[in-house]
């Protein structure tokens, strides 16, 4: 659960001297961290210090200016792939597909050829698997609704469920619950932890909620600038200033306030 010492076998996710510069403004510099498989890493830091940028690099959406990122010993693919799922703060599920349509899409992409369409028995199988996930994230009652007809919490559950269907090894979450009310947020946290335990995937979660970061993570990374020039506040980039191992998801933090909330499915 801690960074690899020099000479030890590389960790599952190995980031070495990562640097990102936009124009001539350094955003990240000297970011080195090794993360073991199955960790739930929470990331906190001041607004604008480069947390989302770090996730974009892990996702392969952007190339770093310097340094390397390797997953399972191999350099990361320079474009997004099904090994790395993502949930953004802003819902990014597909507005033209219903809840069920959104959850069927990963199967249609995997087995539906160039047009990503399944027919007959294979379509029914995909539909069954989609419905199972729909049940799992508590959206069975909203199967035929479009995302615009869902609440923010429901949209995020859909985004989470959809992101998990390709069975990513790594799940990246960028302030996924930031826009949710406290009750809904707790349910979402509980759901995330359950799914993380079931799948054994490695999770990176950016959050602005320090409590959430400590309650959920098996490890917390704090991003900040170590060097600071008062004359040129943007002269230096941020790096990881604290890297603290945690016990992992705190049971009582996740327990809903009232038993009525226990059933995630009826929450809305």
């Amino acid at each position, binding site marked *: 659960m801690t960074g690899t010492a020099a000479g030890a076998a590389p960790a599952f996710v190995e980031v070495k001297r990562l640097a990102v510069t936009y124009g001539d403004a350094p955003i990240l510099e000297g970011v080195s961290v090794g993360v073991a498989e199955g960790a739930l890493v929470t990331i906190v830091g001041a607004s604008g210090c480069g947390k989302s940028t770090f996730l974009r690099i892990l996702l392969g959406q952007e190339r770093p200016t310097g340094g390397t990122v390797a997953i399972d010993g191999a350099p990361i693919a320079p474009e*997004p792939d*099904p090994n790395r799922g993502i949930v953004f703060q802003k819902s990014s599920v597909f507005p*033209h597909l219903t809840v069920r349509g959104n959850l069927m899409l990963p199967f249609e992409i995997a087995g*539906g050829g160039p*047009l990503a369409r399944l027919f007959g028995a294979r379509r029914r199988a995909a539909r069954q698997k989609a419905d199972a996930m729909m049940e799992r994230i508590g959206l069975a009652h909203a199967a035929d609704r479009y995302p615009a007809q869902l609440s923010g919490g429901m949209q995020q559950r859909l985004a989470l469920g959809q992101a998990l269907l390709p069975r990513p090894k790594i799940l990246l979450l960028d302030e996924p619950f930031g826009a949710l009310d406290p009750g809904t947020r707790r349910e979402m946290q509980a759901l995330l932890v359950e799914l993380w335990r079931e799948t054994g995937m490695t999770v990176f979660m950016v959050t602005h909620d320090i409590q959430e970061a400590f309650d959920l993570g098996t490890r917390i990374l704090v991003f900040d600038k170590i060097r600071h020039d008062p004359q040129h506040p943007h002269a230096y980039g941020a790096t990881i200033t604290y890297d603290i191992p945690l016990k992992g998801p705190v049971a009582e933090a996740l327990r809903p306030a009232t038993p009525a909330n226990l059933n995630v499915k009826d929450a809305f």
Partner: protein
Amino acid sequence: MRLINQRPGRVGAILLGAIPFALALAAYVVGSAVRRAENPQDKLLPSLEAMGTAFARMAFEADRRSGDYLLWVDTAASLERLAHGMLIAAGLAIVVGALIGILPVGRALLSPFVSAFSLIPPITVLPILFIVLGLGEAAKVGLIVVGTAPLMIRAVAQSVLDLPREEIIRAQTLGASTMQLTARVVLPQMWPHLVRAIRMGLVPAWIFLVSAEAIAATEGLGYRIFLVRRYLAMDVIIPYVLWITLIAYVLDRALALASRRLFPWAHLSGDAL
């Protein structure tokens, strides 16, 4: 209550909407009556009855020379040209718009050309079209395409570029290839914008259709209007103009309705005209 918060009811809205029409009609009737009181032979503002008679003659009496029912022959000819022109323009908008919107390479290749092309005043191309394609249907359809395609291509391409970046990323994390992403994420969300682009394109399309027909045609709504202009036949021209307007209105409404039916998800929020 503030004026910005006062909303008319259903009936109120219809009545309010009718007022400008009623005023325009009343102004015409009065003007026409005044002129005809001065000179019963006046042709500029014919009475409603005269226009009704002329319109009925065009619609329901066979022409003495050709034996055709002129209104329907003209309407069919014009609509056919319009349909062909819009079909080609829409096809171009889909293919070129998608290439520009989806592929950075496509954008680099085609976007400057489309931008430059869209600056050509289409009507100046008409003589070229007549010379190259002859005076037949092709030149008239061609003018409609030249006049509408660039703007439709740009509208469609922009709608693709406006898709949230997060959606495109997410589709890739689900494993989608470029083709799959196009087929399942981009194109389905492009269709409602294509319908909008067609509605938008129909406005210049009518202008270029009537212009082309005015110059070289043997039938068509624009041809007829410019033909009878020689005889100052306002009793035919005005009903024809209203008829064209009615067709344009019905087409626009039909497309708007089709979009609502076919793409309900695209109309879940916001007011649209």
